[in-house]
């Protein structure tokens, strides 16, 4: 580990109503991987945005390579040698890989951009990283992982001294993660200072040298990774120990009737011949790595995406579901993992969102029965303890957790017997998480049949009565909670791949 190259002291930043950063300190040495951890909203990303000049700080100093610096825009930061590999990859899909890497500083011959020189440069970079990517390919035709590699290549091409990885593994498969780590280690060896933001404990243990933890916009402390335990870090992150006791046996009575039966469901590459049953009052966990085809299965089942084949029975009756409309009428509801895009109408009020799926129950003739609407909405706001000044509040003014509650309310109002929760706790802070768990348990107890898709193994093990594991679009395992173990699930989730350097894939921060 080399000398300190970057120091941030007493960084302070407020947004209207939020004190995002409260005098935070942070430092990076050259040749180290420095983890920055904390719950969502702890201020990690904000801190990095201040560092890279996307936000301007209210107070505090940044010292880089011995002299105090102040970046007003990403450009300045890049030129100084601080680059960030963004969590939501910021690439221009229509341009080629090389064009993306060199956007804003294209080599030119006279008036014209010298693309061939650019491609050669890019080739060199990839060679340096030991990756196989054709610089001439259009960005959007690459896999997410490769796109990220390009981002890294871009970072290096800025001859950066400090590279920030913001949730780099959120969307990667394990093989890809390993490849990423190889690269990161290589960069560390080359003396780069690396900031690594992630939630994934074992990644932290595996790749980082030091860990700094933030909570509620404050700097809590820094530990040397080898010398500390997961628990210590978690305690620092959440300020209290939370027990995520795995279920020991199914809470669902063995004689519970089958509510949903899916047979030989096929939808594109990501859903191949998936069959399963779902019982009344059961929570069926869908485990697997990101990109295993669980969400796709749910969407196909829900009629959101077209499916090639597959039969669906509900309460023993065969139903044909070709659109979300059919699904909802059949009593299925789907809480998407991407709330903002597929879950809620941000510009509209809680009321309007809550009754979106069930408006026909709130109409007198063709008119909307607003009093009834308001009454029901209020009921669920209370029931779910949604924090809001009123039911006319626009959803975009609510926190992630409360937005999720509005989505849940929408489906509760619909009173559908089958509920699909896709990453129900993604981007939700610990407290709200707890509430959501309790809520799901209550729902199951009240006789609803629940499918829970989660990439967080702890969550799966804690909530599910039964677990289905998917891998590359296929169902690769089914366990009763009693017999399920991390190892079993992981081996199913990764099929033949050897078990040594395996770890559960955990939740990633929502974008």
């Amino acid at each position: 580990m080399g000398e300190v190259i970057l120091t941030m002291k007493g960084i302070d930043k407020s947004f209207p109503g939020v004190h995002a950063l409260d005098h935070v300190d942070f430092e990076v040495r050259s040749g180290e991987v420095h983890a920055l951890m904390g719950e969502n909203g702890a201020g990690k990303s904000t801190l990095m945005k201040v560092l890279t000049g996307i936000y301007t700080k209210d107070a505090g100093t940044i010292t880089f390579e011995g002299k105090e610096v102040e970046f007003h825009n990403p450009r300045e930061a890049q030129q100084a040698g601080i680059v960030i590999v963004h969590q939501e990859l910021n690439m221009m899909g229509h341009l080629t890989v090389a064009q993306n890497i060199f956007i804003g500083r294209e080599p030119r011959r006279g008036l014209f951009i010298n693309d061939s020189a650019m491609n050669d440069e890019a080739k060199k970079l990839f060679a340096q990283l030991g990756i196989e990517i054709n610089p001439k390919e259009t960005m959007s035709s690459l896999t997410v992982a490769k796109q990220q590699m390009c981002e890294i290549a871009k970072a290096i091409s800025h001859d950066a001294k400090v590279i920030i990885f913001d949730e780099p593994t959120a969307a990667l498969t394990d093989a890809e993660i390993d490849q990423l780590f190889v690269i990161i280690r290589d960069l560390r060896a080359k003396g780069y200072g690396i900031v690594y933001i992630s939630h994934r404990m074992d990644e932290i243990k595996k790749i980082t040298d030091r860990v700094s933890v933030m909570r509620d916009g404050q700097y809590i402390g820094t530990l040397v990774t080898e010398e500390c335990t997961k628990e210590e870090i978690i305690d620092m992150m959440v300020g209290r120990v939370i027990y995520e006791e795995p279920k020991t046996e199914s809470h669902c009575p063995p004689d519970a009737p089958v509510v949903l039966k899916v047979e030989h469901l096929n939808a594109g590459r990501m859903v191949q011949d998936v069959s399963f049953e779902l019982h009344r009052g059961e929570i069926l966990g869908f485990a697997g790595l990101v990109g295993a085809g669980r969400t796709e299965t749910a969407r196909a089942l829900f009629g959101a995406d077209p499916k090639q084949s597959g039969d669906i029975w509900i309460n023993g009756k065969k139903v044909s579901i070709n659109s979300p409309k059919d699904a909802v009428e059949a009593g299925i509801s789907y809480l998407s993992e991407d709330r903002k895009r597929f879950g809620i109408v941000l510009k509209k009020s809680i009321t309007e969102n809550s009754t979106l799926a069930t408006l026909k129950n709130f109409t007198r003739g063709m008119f909307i029965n607003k009093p009834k609407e308001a009454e029901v909405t209020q009921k669920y706001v209370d029931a779910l303890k949604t924090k809001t000044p009123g039911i006319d509040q626009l959803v975009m003014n609510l926190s992630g957790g409360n937005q999720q509650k509005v989505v849940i309310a929408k489906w509760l109002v619909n009173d559908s017997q089958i509920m699909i929760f896709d990453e129900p706790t993604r981007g939700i802070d610990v407290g709200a998480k707890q509430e959501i768990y309790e809520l799901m348990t209550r729902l199951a107890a009240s006789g609803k049949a629940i499918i829970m898709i989660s990439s967080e193994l702890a969550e799966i093990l804690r909530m599910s009565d039964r677990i289905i594991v998917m891998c590359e679009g296929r169902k690769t395992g089914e366990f009763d909670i009693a017999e399920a173990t991390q190892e079993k699930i992981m081996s199913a989730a990764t099929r033949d791949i050897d078990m040594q350097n395996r770890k559960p894939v955990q939740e990633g921060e929502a974008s």
Partner: protein
Amino acid sequence: MKDLLNRFKSLKLVRIMGFNRVVLIGVIIVLCLIFQVLSAVLNHGNVFLTYARFTSAMNYGYFIGFLALGVTFVIATGGIDFSVGPVMFCAALISGYCFNNYGFPMWVSLIMCPLIGMVFGTVGGFFVSYLHLPSFITSLALMQIAKGVGSIFTKTQNVSWPGSSDPGGWYRSLSNLDITVGGQRVNIPTGLIILIVVAILCSIVLNKTKAGRYMICLGANREAVRLSGVDTRRWEMLAYVICGTLAGFAAIFYVGCYTTVQPVKGDTFNNEAIAACVMGGTSMAGGLASILGTVIGSFIIAIMQEGILSMGFNIAFQYSLTALILLGAVIADVMSRRRRN
């Protein structure tokens, strides 16, 4: 000053109408005063604020109003309709031609207008919502087609609807009812009444019914609405159908005031209709629509063109002024949204 403004903003009426609407009404009042003064000064002592000028201004407001109301629905769903003007003309041409040449009874011809409009709306709606074509292009194509059909049907001829004294001329009293009180001929602007009634219906549909709720919501986030089990295509299409129908309806009031329709014309009315609803605060981004605003917007346009005339100015001023007011309204809207975020 500031708290005065806030107190004003918090008035019940203002809150119901929305601050921007109230401002627009202010604009109307100011415009009227300016026109009053200028037409006196510049145009040989002309008087602007007279009942006669009011009704004649309204004549222009009726059909623009109906067009704008229709467009409001489409814009609410996040689309745009660039074909309403020609569609209106096409409806007027065909039904008028039938009245003149095939001896259709007037009431049939009148009913035909909205029906023809509806056909165009349905076709456009289908292409946009079921085949997912960009609404702008679709309506461009539709505009050409409307022009073509109209002029083919009428053999490239003008169509003149009957005058008030001719048989079937009663349809004119839909837009202007002439009654004689003590030897004085008085013009009741029935069109205004109908426009307001239709506007109220529209705002009920938009704000109080399932259809309206869905249209606005899918304008804001189509996918979320679809995944709530709503058949978005159906409701989006409905918006275009309503738009087309209202365009056909506008035709009745166009001929009611102007009698004669030409083939291959009417595109300029698109711009004025769209301008009217954007002025009124309907957002191009979808998810935000105000019928009241649209109506006020159309009135501003109508009053403007009457004012220009009464000042004895070249018609050209009307376009440029409308453009400036439109820009002003939009910029103000954008700024206020900026401040809120």
